[in-house]
């Protein structure tokens, strides 16, 4: 099992939120996905401890939860950075050089696609098409979207997130 290397620091508050989400959805048909999505929103990722809580709350085995969590790319077993760099790797962005932009981010931050920097500040993820092909190549850092990006702009973009 993908054991998280980072110590789990969930709060009582988060646990209560998760319990609420479980209570709200439990009796709906096909409730597991909405509950898992809520859990990830609350904790930011899906470590074993959270999966265990969902399993108990939903009356489903941990292995089944793990199976679902690892099937979908939007559930993460590892925490993401404070600033999540998402680079669209859709076809329109790819033919306009998204691959080179990803490489540049990897070089600047010293991490690979899917990883997080040691200080927990930045993570990079190549994304499936975000549907903003008119602005290709596109990337986002948390909620900020950057369109028609060139390789040279990468250091400037990163400089916006110093804190």
């Amino acid at each position, binding site marked *: 099992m993908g054991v998280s290397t980072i110590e789990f620091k969930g709060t009582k508050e988060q646990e209560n939120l998760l319990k609420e989400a479980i209570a709200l959805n439990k009796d709906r048909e096909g409730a597991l996905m909405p509950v898992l999505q809520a859990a990830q929103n609350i904790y930011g990722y899906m470590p074993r401890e959270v999966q265990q809580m969902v399993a108990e709350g939903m009356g489903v085995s941990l292995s089944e939860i793990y199976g679902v969590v690892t099937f979908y790319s939007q559930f993460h077993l590892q925490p993401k950075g404070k600033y999540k760099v998402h680079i669209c790797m859709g076809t329109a962005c790819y033919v306009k050089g998204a691959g080179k932009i990803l490489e540049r981010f990897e070089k600047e931050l010293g991490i690979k696609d899917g990883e997080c920097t040691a200080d927990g500040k930045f993570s990079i993820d190549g994304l499936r098409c*975000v549907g903003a092909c008119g602005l290709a190549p596109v990337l986002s850092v948390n909620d900020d979207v950057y369109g028609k990006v060139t390789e040279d702009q990468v250091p400037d973009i990163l400089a916006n997130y110093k804190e």
Partner: protein
Amino acid sequence: MIRSHIMLCSGTGCVASGCHAISDAIEAEIKAVGLESEVKIVHTGCFGLCALGPIMIIYPEGSFYAQVKPEDCKEIVDEHLLKGRIVKRLLYHETVGDDKLTNLSDTGFYKKQKRIALRLCGVIDPEHIDEYIGFNGYEALGKVLTEMKPEEVIDLLKKSGLRGRGGAGFPTGLKWEFAAKAKGEQKYVCCNADEGDPGAFMDRSILEGDPHAIIEAMTIAAYAIGADKGYVYVRAEYPIAVTRLEIAIKQAKEYGLLGENIFESGFGFDLEIRLGAGAFVCGEETALMTSIEGNRGEPRPRPPFPAVKGLFNCPTVLNNVETYANIPQIILNGTDWFTSMGTETSKGTKVFALGGNVTNVGLVEVPMGTTLREIVEEIGGGVPGGKKFKAAQTGGPSGGCIPAEHFDVPIDFEQLTAIGSMMGSGGLIVMDEDSCMVDIAKYFLGFTVEESCGKCTPCRIGTKRLYELLDKITSGNGEMSDFDMLDTLCHHIISSSLCALGQTAPNPVLSTLNYFKDEYLAHIVEKRCPAGVCKDLLRYTIIEEKCIGCTVCLKNCPTNAITGAVKVPHVINQEKCIKCDVCVEKCKFNAILKQ
């Protein structure tokens, strides 16, 4: 009284290019001159010309302002709204006539388009149900519930020839008939809004720009097959679409157009949104339903088809967003109207997401049978930067690359399949001479390898082996025998995969092998990438005549691969060169050749 309407595109494309800042700026400027009671700002869905965003159209003049910046807003308000003088410098250049504005529908981008599914995108505020109703919204539902029997609805749809816009093109009326005839107490209606093909964004735009059309059509479907519950399965990557759909569902319920006893007919329908979680295979119908049930989104063998045994093992109709968007129009305008557009086998229109190396990137809707040339050259404005067109890719990872020789084929479901591609959901990516076709095939296979759910071996292992072969070729280790291996693998994967993901995964390889074999040969025999994309095959050399011997490249080379004296042309040692591109960046004399 309102005398001017500002239509501000608020689709994902324009949001990303900053339309929120424009909205705030223009609102402040309007307030500053006290025009709040005379000018109305309408946040609409996508106009289609995403490359020119943020876009603003001001009526009644119909002036189309493109790439507006917040600092332009004062001028727009002072000149246009206050003094009635159109700000010419901000107009989309194609609309600037000699002495008056050219109508938008006469510009190259819009002239050949026919908007049915996108009818209200960019026309109404999708967050206000009254605007949808003002454009005959929910009239089709009213007609169906009060004047038509379920069989009549299905017959009408069958007669219209409407085929599923999600990719395979299955006749929609027939699908509904199967579900209507299937036995079962509980039936479901689902909408596939898990638009996963990279480069396709029409479903997102429809949900963002005209969400009520989908609610209306799904309710009609529910009436036709006898269902009372529905699900819209949307990609979580589309937050704006999800929000607008949520608002639309809430408003429809408040108006009694969704919920119990709609139009006093005794018929009721409830609709719920389910979010995807980033698995491409969930666009496949059986996988989508498995995912709604709360499981790993793996497909299952068909038959039984969803119309017989679908969601929670009940008869289910599942249609794509664009398919639904056509239905209220077909009911209101009749089958003769709909069949008057399109080709023999494919009626109506198709929306394409035009992207890649083309001038007018955006969303276009054309009658079936329009040629690729018309779409790329006339509507799309051709390839920018004086580059040469190389191929158009349709159908995403399930489709293929179409070369210029098939530019004049009228596009419909059959024709695209005949030339080795497929309609798919309608992504159309234009590639110029700088794209390497072997690399593109590898790109798509990389996608399928990651997205294969792993349930069946031909897809799980087969696509991986295909990818490895392509990687071998692009890294300069290809052999002639790889051709046979590619071909055999492709055909085995097609014939033995469980679902459409695997069955169509080899298409990018087969189509590029078919049309661009010379590029494969260049990689394998000459160990050369003609487009200069495949890094391992690139060679950096110094052009003697251009090099002045300034030593800049030499000093910057991280591996000391460059040698030479001052004022003497330098040389690159190929064994040491790691192809990092630093010398190309540093050389001021374009003396480094990369090929």
